[in-house]
């Protein structure tokens, strides 16, 4: 198999293999915390941090970790970085930590992260694994940012806390509620599929 250029590992995560829109991985935080753009961004950055750090370690240790206990090792590594992220947010941005609630610790079981370790970092060299993790993290963050922006603008009339809608705009409360997350995500996936189909033809 011909080697792809390394930069391709980064780019594919942004769109072609976007974890949220194409792979549909990591949907639990995607749906749960994206009430405001701030939350979406914070969740995206936290997940990216965990993903990049664990990919780094897993890729580094890929020849050392015995096959039988690979999942256990990955989970321990991921859990370590998740705890680091969790404690950091609690210590320095208590407001965000409070509004993300249990979803930061739940990054441990985010299948996007474990999936990348199993599917990529454990089989590829360090550089490529890092690029892959960065690309996936960026794709995840972007999707969350768009989703949470739509929900915040329509559901609260604000974006990153700033009033941006006209005065008489009445907010669509449903967008701040769980159904709003499903509706918006559905529309985003539909739009992504539509664009991809048009690109192919």
């Amino acid at each position, binding site marked *: 198999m011909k080697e792809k250029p390394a930069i391709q590992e980064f780019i594919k995560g942004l769109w072609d293999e976007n974890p949220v829109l194409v792979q549909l991985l990591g949907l639990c935080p995607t749906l749960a915390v994206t009430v405001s753009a701030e939350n979406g961004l914070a969740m995206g950055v936290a997940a990216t941090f965990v993903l990049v750090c664990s990919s780094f370690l897993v890729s580094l240790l890929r020849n050392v970790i015995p096959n039988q206990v690979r999942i256990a090792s990955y989970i321990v590594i991921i859990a370590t970085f998740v705890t680091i992220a969790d404690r950091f947010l609690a210590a320095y941005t208590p407001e965000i930590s409070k509004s993300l609630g249990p979803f930061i610790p739940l990054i441990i079981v985010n299948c996007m992260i474990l999936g990348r370790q199993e599917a990529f970092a454990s089989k590829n060299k360090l550089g490529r694994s890092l690029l892959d993790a960065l690309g996936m993290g960026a794709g995840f963050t972007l999707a969350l940012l768009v989703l949470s922006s739509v929900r915040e603008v329509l559901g609260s009339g604000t974006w990153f806390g700033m009033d941006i809608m006209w005065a008489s705009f*009445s*907010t*669509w409360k*449903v967008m701040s*509620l769980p159904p709003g997350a499903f*509706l918006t995500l559905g529309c985003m996936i*539909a739009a992504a599929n539509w664009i991809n189909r048009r690109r192919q033809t």
Partner: protein
Amino acid sequence: MTEKKNDIKETQDPAKTEASAEKQAKKEVPAEKQEKKGASAEKPKAKPKPKKNPRAKLFKSERMTIVAPAPHAKGKQSVPRIMYTVIIALLPAVAASIFFFGTRAMVTLMVAVFSAMVAEFACNKIMKTGVTIDDGSAILTGLLLAMTLPPTFPVAATALGAVIAIVFGKQVFGGLGANIFNPALIGRAFLQASFPVKITTWTLPAFASSSAYFDIATSKAVDTVSGATPLGLWKFEGIGTHLKPLLFGNIGGCIGETSALALLAGGIVLLILKYADWRIPLSYIGTVFLFSGALWLIDPSRYPDPLFMILSGGLILGAFFMATDMVTSPVTPLGTWIYGIGMGVMLVVIRLWGGLPEGVMYSILFMNGLVPLLNRWTRPKYFGEIQEESKKK
């Protein structure tokens, strides 16, 4: 409502034409067009009939597959014919609400219908399906949605609800006949979740207490324009409403849920024409009557009397015009009974113990979701089926 009836005469297989023709004809649901299976078998039916209506070309074609318990027979009906009949049946209630709420109700009705049609047309164009705005289903969806809104509901929000109803209630599932939930109620549910304050800001009819003929429970009606619905009054203030205003429609509430008599008139026409399955309103309203009646007998001070339960809120509208939607109700008689009873129980539970004063919408949407399951469970066994099953084991 859907294209369960078809424009094509009974030219096919004579074996299928006999027996319970009228009853079964209603039950035929064409599946999605893509489904080519069984196309050749159905082909003889597709003999073009004179162009009675432009929709015929869409539904007569060999792309259509019929799914329903046998035996099958074809009626003279068409989608537009059913849709427009239901719309006409709704007209008495529409007229009554315009009479009671004035031009503001008319604006809401027109905005909803117009937005629904525009959304339908846009979806048709984007999805490259045939244009279906002339089959009346979008008009009906818009009309039914408007009937569930307060007369003073903001115009922009009404339009939004109609668009959501058509796009997310119907077209995303593949258009009319493929939707799981009643589109108008999807629109209403979206609006309820989005604008919970505005959708519960009721207006009392224009001359609520000027006429002594209607004695209304709210004495405040003289000096105020906003008021609660009878159900809201009962739930939050403990005030009952007399039955006479409930019957005629001189009460606060949604555009279409006020005049029980006008709704009943239209509903009965639908039953006579068999466009609505009589089992649905009977089992739905009957269950509400029996369940709430039993509670009322136990403790009349805590629970409202069953007649109040039936005449207030949107029960009549829901039972005759929404729950009977052919697409989203079961096809078997037994399934239909379970469907109606389920809705009745849900409604009483929501009204008496839930957080909301009204539960018609959620009771219907909830049971809509179970319809595929009910159809599966209550499918009649065909001859010899049991033996075949045991053989497999």
